[in-house]
């Protein structure tokens, strides 16, 4: 550390100022004064010599002297913000004033740009005030971090952190699936053979425990820790945190996997019959039921950036779904065998998939392009990405954690590894904690993965320490700004962009919405006239007067143009004729 310090100091923006002496006091001797302080006095003396009686001029000089003694700001101007930090808070591209813009538009654009820049700077400055730093694990020289055992880590860290490595031995009803609540305080585990329990895992308080006496396929927390959904053998059930059954949703049958979209209050379920269904948990209505026609759906993930559901299929494809469309938004072939597991990172940039071909692939899902792939000898059955981009993969009975996998660099050695007993069935990182939860055949294991969790939470969004009242208030606010399912699409930020649909497109939409074409030409209807003038023949005559009016106009115009052109040509040819005079022309009659 000491080697780094001086370099840091020199690289700061503050120039090294000369150390200032305190102003001279009356008891100090004149010899002790600093060189810089004495100089004006000398000048004063010189001035006095030049102009013998200069008592009047002494005053301004003295004041000058005082000014020098005033404190100077050692940090002038605004404190600079690192470019990287600013970049983090950049939203979209900056809007430029188009050439030839009117004054009002110009002013509007410049003022809004200034405002957004100010907001960006403020947010970037706030980064300094964040209280926590992320965790890390470093090995000694020539030592791999993946050889460090969990026991060693638990011993090395403080007691509270150490207690986050624990196992629950539940060998009777396994294997287990698990889910952490959004705040990371509560854990829900569901055993295949019907055992469901929810635990405040940090205090190890058991909130409820029960056996639903049916196969449990998946468990999921809803928007708060007061409710959770359990996909049982036939129907979907919703329980409260005390284990009381609230609903049995019979519209949702044979559910295998579930995802909860917290900002839309939607529970997306994938069933054995190939149906993808969305349940709005705030009003209890089925929003959409999509028959995917892809067979059994047991691989599912959500994109936290745009709430699109990713489904993996036995033929190696992955399809992306929104509730607004009966066809997949995107269908991509990712593996040669069936897809076993997939996960998407929180920025919605990367997707990691694993298949029966024992490959692990990383995709850029903005461009739908593979970035890199690697071969895992045992294949990965479960995948999970942490908030800070650590990937955990369950290969057989070993959980491997990879670092720096999101990006263009190829996969290297795992960052951590941990062996468990029994088949791994569920894998999830705890939000805002350095903890990876593993559900397996022998129960549940909580494993410490330093550097996995986001160190600083936003208390208005997810607060692990929130009180009961705060939770209630948050729930009301969240319900008020529930995003409608119609807004789910690949690009959620498109809503703030200018709609640049062409006139034809907009007109088409208008026709569809109205049911008729407002710009259509009204067919000419002749008025009925009296005294026998409305005979069929007369009407027909009147109709013919206005018939093909547009065409007639066009024809008239084109005829006019043609005649003009011909006239011009004629004149030209005349000129030519006049120009090519031969000497014998004068004999012509």
């Amino acid at each position, binding site marked *: 550390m000491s080697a780094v310090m001086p370099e840091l100091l020199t690289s700061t923006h503050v120039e090294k100022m000369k150390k200032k002496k305190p102003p001279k006091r009356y008891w100090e001797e004149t010899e002790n004064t600093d060189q810089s302080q004495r100089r004006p006095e000398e000048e004063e003396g010189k001035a006095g010599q030049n102009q013998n009686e200069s008592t009047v001029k002494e005053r301004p000089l003295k004041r000058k002297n005082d000014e020098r003694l005033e404190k100077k700001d050692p940090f002038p101007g605004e404190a600079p913000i690192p470019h990287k930090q600013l970049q983090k*808070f950049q939203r979209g591209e900056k809007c430029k004033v188009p050439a030839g813009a009117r004054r009002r538009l110009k002013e509007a654009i410049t003022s809004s740009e200034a405002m957004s820049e100010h907001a960006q700077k403020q947010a970037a400055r706030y980064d300094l005030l964040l209280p926590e*730093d992320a*965790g890390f694990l470093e090995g000694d020289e020539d030592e791999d971090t993946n050889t460090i055992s969990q*026991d060693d880590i638990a011993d090395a860290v403080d007691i509270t952190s150490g207690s986050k490595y624990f196992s629950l031995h539940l060998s009777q009803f396994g294997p287990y699936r698990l889910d952490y609540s959004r705040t990371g305080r509560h854990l829900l585990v569901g055993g295949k053979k019907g055992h469901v329990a929810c635990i405040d895992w940090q205090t190890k308080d058991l909130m409820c425990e029960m056996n639903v006496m049916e196969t449990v396929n998946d468990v999921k927390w809803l928007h708060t820790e007061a409710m959770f959904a359990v996909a049982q053998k036939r129907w979907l059930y919703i329980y409260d945190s005390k284990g009381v059954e609230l609903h049995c949703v019979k519209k949702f049958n044979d559910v295998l996997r579930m995802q909860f979209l917290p900002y839309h209050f939607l529970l997306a379920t994938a069933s054995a019959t190939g149906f993808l269904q969305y349940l709005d948990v705030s009003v209890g209505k089925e929003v959409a039921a999509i028959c995917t026609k892809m067979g059994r759906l047991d691989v599912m993930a959500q994109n936290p950036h745009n709430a699109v559901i990713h489904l993996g299929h036995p033929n190696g494809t992955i399809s992306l779904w929104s509730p607004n469309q009966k066809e997949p938004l995107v269908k991509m072939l990712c593996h040669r065998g069936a897809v076993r597991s997939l996960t998407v990172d929180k920025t919605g940039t990367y997707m990691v998939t694993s298949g029966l071909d024992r490959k692990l692939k990383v995709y850029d899902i903005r461009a739908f392009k593979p970035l890199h792939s690697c071969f895992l000898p045992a294949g990965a059955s479960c995948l999970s990405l942490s908030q800070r981009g650590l990937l955990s993969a369950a290969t057989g009975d070993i959980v491997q954690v990879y670092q720096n996998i999101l990006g263009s660099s190829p996969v290297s050695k795992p960052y951590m590894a941990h062996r468990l007993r029994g088949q791994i069935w569920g894998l999830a990182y705890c939000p805002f904690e350095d903890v990876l939860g593993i559900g397996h055949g022998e129960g549940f294991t909580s494993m410490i993965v330093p550097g996995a969790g986001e160190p600083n939470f936003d208390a208005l*969004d997810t607060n692990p320490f929130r009180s009961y009242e705060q939770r209630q208030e948050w729930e009301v606010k969240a319900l008020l*700004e529930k*995003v409608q399912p119609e807004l789910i699409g690949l690009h959620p930020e498109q809503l703030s962009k200018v709609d640049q649909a062409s006139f034809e497109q907009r007109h088409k939409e208008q026709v569809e919405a109205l049911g008729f074409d407002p710009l259509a030409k009204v067919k000419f209807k002749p008025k009925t006239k009296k005294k026998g003038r409305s005979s069929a023949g007369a009407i027909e005559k009147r109709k013919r007067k206005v018939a093909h009016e547009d065409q007639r106009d066009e024809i008239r115009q084109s005829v006019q143009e043609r005649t003009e052109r011909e006239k011009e040509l004629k004149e030209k040819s005349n000129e030519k004729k006049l120009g090519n005079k031969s000497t014998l022309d004068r004999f012509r009659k």
Partner: protein
Amino acid sequence: HQSAYESDNIKVLCRNPDDYVRETTRDIQRVPRNYDPTLHPFEVPREYTRALNATKLERVFAKPFVASLDGHRDGISCITKHAKSLSTVISGACDGEVKLWNLPRQECLRTVQAHEGFVRGICSRFCGTSFFTVGDDKTIKQWNLEAPGYGVREEPINTILGKAVFTGIDHHQRESTFVTCGQTVDIWDEQRSSPIRSFSWGVDSFSCVRYNPVETELLASCASDRSIVLYDTRESAPLRKVIMQLRSNTLCWNPMEAYYFTCANEDYNLYTYDIRHLDVPVTVHMDHVSAVLDVDYSPTGREFVSASFDKTIRIFPKDKGHSREVYHTKRMQHVICVRWSADNKYVLSGSDEMNIRLWKANASEKLGLLSTREKAAAHYNKKLIEKFQHHPQVRRIARHRHLPGDILKQKREQREMKEARRRREQNVRKHSKPGSVPLLTEKEKHVAAVVE
């Protein structure tokens, strides 16, 4: 087995609850923030949802009617604001009665039987000590704003007997002169009983005259020969006039940009003119379905309110062709006069059925003192609505106004008539010599001539 890892090589997130939970229940909750955009997904859709909610709430809370001041025994013919006091207004009725009102207490302070026949105009003196009324009995009366003592009869300070009926009056901003209109536009000194100057320009009568609030020697008046005449009181003859297709009833100067004035016309429209270019109005404000009877600007000069024979009042932004707000009630009949209060918060309307109504200028605004958080929330909502105003859902909700069936029917009818007129004009153009029937914009259609 040895544990070989020092704490230098490893760090695990561990939060001390004391840093995140308040110390006592009397403390406020700790709310650490992190503005990282990746922790706040769906920024735009959530903001849009908020904007939609704000728009809906704005419509839900749009309850503009505040109070009705009743007490007059005939239709209200004119209202004026007190020059100094926000809470006082003076109104005159068709039976010659003038009433002074206290707005916060919603009660009548004083009643004066000022004239025989209509009270045609009232104006308050700039110092706020007295006010002038003109009536059908050909008199101008000056009244004290202070009520007379107990047992003392209501007597005008001064009475001037004119030769003809006066139809309007306005007082100078700083000097003791005032102007009346009737058969001529007369400028009076308060000390004299005959006008200092009289203007006329071959017209038989004027309906309204107004001093310019900034260029105080400038006058504008509406004449019954469809013209609007401008005068300079320092000159002996009128400056210029613009003749329109139909008669203007009243006009009002923009108090902030005083080279603009807006006139309320018989052809259901309002026209904003720039006095420097009178040949074409700056904006034509269309929405009323019957003659517009009165108009008044807000003190900020950004909006004005108009009263119409179609039993509604409308609020127009000064540079927009259509109104942003329409107020009506079942019982309100033809609205004769309208005023915008000097604090920019209220609108007063006087109508045929003897009531003065007090409306909020901003229909969904909360009245009374607001806490800082309420203010912040109101600002935020306003900004959100502004940001998403062009989204179809937001626009549809924000624009929707309930209208009485009659007005809706008339609106539809007039649209049809307009379309028919347009079609006919097109046909005429088609069958006449090219260029002989020029294409006129809506602004150009309504001005007949400008006379210097």
